[in-house]
């Protein structure tokens, strides 16, 4: 059942693992923010990813610059997410089952709309022209675009870390999460803050969708393929922990790529082994705090 691979193949797999890990971090950090800070199980996170990717496909089709397309579709999905949070999710604060039903329902609606607008054909936009080549190192070729995904993910990870841990905004978010009533008393607009976080999470997912499009391609069903990956990453890393999400993302990236190369039939099962171990040995996740 195990397939043999050479050292060169292993190196390529390693690069792919890092690229997928970076993508997963962009996707899951938004999920982790929304889930960890607002306790909303956002089951349309995969849909934000897919919607962002489709927006990106259309924008690229109009000849937009790749990075501009990624940012624009991130903004568009952020606006959609913000509206959903304000108008629908806001009424359901603290009610888990209704939140699940609502986000799942919207995920189905988004999936069907995408199918109507972009049809069932897969799209694979090409990477930005400056990143189409490969770098040669140690006598091996490394595709440049995959390295770029990794770079972008690292930059965004640092930016998020600075935002949450070091800025006034981050302090307000943490205060709003720890004790919303007291945060309101001292003048923090918790409600607007939550909308902002939800939009930010949606934007990160959509941005990841555009970044992933040249690599994973975009097709119907992508949404519910990405959602469990985000779930597994957050269960692994611990909800609300950026470091946990980062580690979880790269772990899943490695397992997915090497699993698929070594045990093609069982790739999906291998993904779930670390989740089992974590649930048994450390239910709060690798870097999660114990919630009393």
């Amino acid at each position, binding site marked *: 059942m195990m397939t043999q691979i050479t050292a060169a193949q292993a190196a390529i797999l390693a690069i792919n693992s890092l690229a997928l890990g970076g993508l997963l971090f962009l996707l899951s950090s938004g999920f982790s923010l929304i889930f960890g800070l607002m306790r909303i199980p956002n089951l349309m996170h995969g849909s934000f990813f897919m919607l962002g990717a489709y927006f990106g496909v259309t924008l690229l089709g109009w000849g937009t610059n790749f990075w501009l397309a990624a940012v624009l579709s991130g903004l568009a999905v952020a606006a959609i997410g913000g509206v959903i949070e304000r108008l629908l999710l806001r009424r359901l604060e603290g009610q888990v089952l209704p939140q699940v039903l609502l986000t799942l329902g919207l995920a*189905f609606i988004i999936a069907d709309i995408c199918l109507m607008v972009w049809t069932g054909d897969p799209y694979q936009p090409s990477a930005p022209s400056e990143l189409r080549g490969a770098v040669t190192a140690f006598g091996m070729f490394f595709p440049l675009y995959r390295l770029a995904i990794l770079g972008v993910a690292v930059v965004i990870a640092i930016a998020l870390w600075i935002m949450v841990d070091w800025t006034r905004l981050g302090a307000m978010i943490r205060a709003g999460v720890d004790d919303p009533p007291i945060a309101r008393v001292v003048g923090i607009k918790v409600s607007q803050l939550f909308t902002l976080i939800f939009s930010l999470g949606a934007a990160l997912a959509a941005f990841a969708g555009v970044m992933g499009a040249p690599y994973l391609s975009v097709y119907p069903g992508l949404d519910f393929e990405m959602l469990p990956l985000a779930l597994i990453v957050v269960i692994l890393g611990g909800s609300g922990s950026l470091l946990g999400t980062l580690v979880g993302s790269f772990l899943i990236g490695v397992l997915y790529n090497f699993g698929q190369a070594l045990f*093609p*039939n069982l790739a999906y099962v291998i*993904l779930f082994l670390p989740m089992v171990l974590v649930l*048994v040995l450390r239910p709060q996740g690798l870097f999660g705090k114990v919630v009393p």
Partner: protein
Amino acid sequence: MNRLTPRGAAIGIAVLVLAALPVWIGNPYYINVASQILLYAVLALALNVMVGYGGLVSLGHAGLFAMAGYAGALVLQAGHGHLLADLSAIVVAVAATAVFGLLSLRSTGIGFLMITLALGQIVWGIAYRWADLTNGDNGVNVTTRPAPFGISLASADAFYWATLLVFLLAVVTMAVFVRSPFGASLRGTRDQPRRMNALGYNVWLIRFVAFLFSGFWTGVAGLLFIYYNQFVSPQVAALQASAEALLMVISGGTATLLGPIVGAAIVVIMKNVKLFENWWILGELFTHWNMMLGVIFVAIVTFMPEGLVPGSVRLWKRGLQSVRKRPAVPAKLEERAP
């Protein structure tokens, strides 16, 4: 003791009507729809044990349903008999439920939901990707239906009656389960887990046993499904299928016996019978089932959080009230209280 209560009479009449249904309907297409309703009602009843009585919302039941289906179909494909196929389907379903339970019952609420969702998606992933075993997207065919005691179930009528028998068995078991001390303790763990713990009950074990019970009937439903459909594919394990099952439970009203049955009927009829075909938007909506599913979910949480059936009744009454001159009781009284 043996006097006929109105309730007993109603149940008796319902059973008679259900049994006479194929004769009355005649058209095999609609008899098959009726069989589908009954088999999905078994699934909805099983899920309701968790959602309604245990307060644990599972989005992985389609995974268990599919495991039973695949186990049965693969054993049959390997050339074994129906008895072995049926047994292995049930055993696989219960064993998979035990694994699901060991992993997911470490948490409740959102955590439980997310873990069952992830586990269900993994079953889907195996069905879809492990092509050597499951034949991937092409699915597995089930060529024959069983013939218990020499009675062939090949016709729509015969299959309906067999399904009805299993369905009635499921309803009776559920009724006994709900009224039993164990059912009461399960509801206790839903409402007051800490107090139940303090009273000396093993909350985890109660939930685990309830999950096994639910998994058993989910497996039975999965087995009925492959005999009905004579084909099983990864679609059966998809998240949409779990969501549909949840919709059946919620639309009918949770924690009741009748609710999931009514819910299964609503969902199966909406999916299979061309309703409002000539009503432009509505007809269009009914052909886009996923969209419809989503719209119903959003409508339920926004307008009638207690479930489609009780919610519609409430909205209907309110509509009647506003038509009359003056409501007997000020409508806002309840909302003002706390």
